């Protein structure tokens, strides 16, 4: 499958009162049409801001490095350089929503509380599908039906606070999809929901993605969710991708100590009597980024004199996979 999105050397810096911090560092990934890329990492690892950079949704004090290349191939096959579009341009507005849709963690907060679900859906439909009001309303109801909201023709006139949490997220999915995006970015869409509802929403998203043939970036901190939904996975730690590859392979045979740690931290039915093993230590503050490999402060297998001095480069030990760790790049270490 051709790549619909390629991101190369993405670095994002923020000017703050305490100086410049760079929470995303030289990140490279891609999304193939019709496939799902899972972005995994703890909070603060830079998953969300990486995807916000795609949509130029970062605050004013953020800037991208000069080496950053983000190329998106739109529905018509035209290549577009993301991150460099003019603010307020028609092109950017078409990309936002019409080409790339985004779903956020808090379904309640992503809706404006003072307009009905239908009002906000119709706005997107009229903007991106060029429908008139009446047709847009019909379409909104159809979409609500599609995401499994019962009695959609009544729900369409309700306010967000009148819906349950799971319903709201379904409605948000309907809203985002109604603009007809080719790529869907889902930023922890199930984290704020009850566990039972999480599973339903995950199923829904996977089905819709297959039906509509969309590409998807699914952000989560939960490798268990990745196993259910993603085709490929990229594990992020402190703003760098430490490991990537097909989701199944990475989960079955993790190469980076951090990925291993994340997997050990998942409770599982087979090991009910074992103690959970969280990744030891705290994620360092972005203002105090460790030297060398960013993970060395928490890594049980860190090699003194190497990991804390020089950052490892990405190597590919198994075809189709890549890892950024000194344990897997002996040659480079000797060279360094």
């Amino acid at each position, binding site marked *: 499958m051709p790549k619909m999105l390629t991101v190369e050397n993405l670095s994002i810096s923020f000017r703050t009162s305490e100086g410049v911090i760079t929470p995303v560092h030289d990140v490279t990934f891609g999304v193939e049409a019709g496939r799902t890329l899972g972005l995994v990492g703890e909070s603060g690892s830079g998953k969300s801001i990486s995807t916000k950079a795609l949509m130029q949704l970062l605050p004013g004090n953020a800037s991208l490095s000069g080496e950053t290349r983000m190329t998106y191939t739109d529905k018509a096959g035209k290549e577009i350089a993301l991150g460099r579009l003019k603010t307020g341009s028609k092109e950017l*507005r078409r*990309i936002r*929503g019409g080409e790339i849709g*985004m779903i956020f963690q808090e379904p309640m907060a*992503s809706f404006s*509380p003072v307009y009905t679900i239908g009002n906000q859906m119709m706005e997107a439909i009229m*903007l991106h599908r060029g429908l008139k009001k009446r047709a847009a309303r019909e379409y909104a109801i159809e979409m609500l039906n599609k995401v499994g909201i019962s009695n959609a023709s009544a729900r369409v006139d309700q306010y967000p606070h009148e819906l349950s949490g799971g319903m709201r997220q379904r409605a948000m999915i309907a809203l985002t999809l109604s603009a007809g995006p080719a790529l869907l970015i889902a930023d922890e869409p199930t984290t704020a929901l009850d566990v039972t509802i999480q599973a339903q929403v995950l199923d829904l998203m996977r089905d819709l993605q297959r039906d509509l043939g969309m590409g998807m970036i699914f952000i989560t901190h939960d490798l268990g969710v990745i196993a259910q939904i993603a085709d490929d996975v990229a594990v992020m730690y402190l703003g760098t991708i430490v490991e990537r590859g097909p989701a199944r392979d990475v989960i079955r045979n993790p190469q980076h100590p951090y990925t291993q740690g994340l997997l050990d931290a998942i409770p599982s039915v087979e090991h009910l009597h074992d103690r959970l093993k969280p990744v030891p230590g705290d994620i360092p503050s972005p203002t105090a980024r460790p030297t060398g490999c960013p993970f060395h402060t928490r890594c049980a297998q860190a090699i003194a004199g190497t990991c804390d001095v020089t950052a490892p480069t990405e190597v590919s030990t198994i075809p189709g996979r890549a890892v950024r760790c000194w344990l897997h790049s002996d040659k480079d270490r000797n060279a360094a």
Partner: protein
Amino acid sequence: MLRFTLERLVGMVITMLLVSVMVFLIMELPPGDYADRYAFRKYSGTGVNVTEADIEAIRRDLGLDKPMLLRYFDWIGGIVLRGDFGQAFAFETSVAKVIGDKVWLTAGILFSTLLLTYIVSIPIGIFAAVRRGSAVDYGLTVFSYLGLALPNFLLALVMLYFANRWFGADIGGLFSDQYRDASWSVGKVWDLIKHLWLPAVVLAWSAVAIQIQTVRATMSDELNKLSVTAARARGVPELRLLIKYPTRLAINPVVSTIGFDVNRIFSELPIVAVVLGLTELGELLLRAYLDLDMNVAGAILLMLTFTIVFMNFVSDLLLAWLDPRIKLGA
């Protein structure tokens, strides 16, 4: 919505009732009573010897010998049932006559001030929030401090001074000489409008300063909301987004403080009126206080406060209409 309206309506009536008691107590406060002052006013300097019996007679005539509670009911009953506010002794006529069309002049001042306040403060507050940390934002903060610190009568004097220098002498008051005692006509209304801007600017000054800060604060909060980012991520054009999402919610605190703004305007009105020579209720209220013409003073204080209570009611309804979450809670 109907239930909500009814509840607020009942609340408003209760508050008005309590306010009327308070106003009545203030009317009763000055030493001596209406009969004393009436007799003193009428006969002082005329050489007539007023005896205690004469005063007692006046007192009986006016029903002032009744117990306080009964007098309160007489007073409020007269107002509610007959629109009768009692006698004004300054002109030996009814309070209603003295007040006359000053009610409409006051309403004119009030609404032009409110209009000016919101027209100025809402866009500027939004602009300051969007351009946070800019020179304009900083300048507005300084202005807001000044808006609080500059006593309104001083501002009135300064404005009057400059208005006189730039626009000629005939700028104070509400009418030009030729229209002052004329009956109402198109010319007179136009003349009024030409004079209204000065009191409106003076009275709106501090309200604008406060509202800009309110709008700026809520707008800054709203701009950071996820719903705004989400709408932006859907490709909503920026200006439309700004108006539809954050502005819509940033207006709520302004709406909820309409009553306070009216309160502030009425509070400043008597003093500004003195300086600017306005002939409306505030100035009349001050004169009534100075003359201890408490029937007039009480009537005006009651009218001003009832207006505030009513505007609170209106702002509650507006807010419920603007914010769908409120109806659910009520």
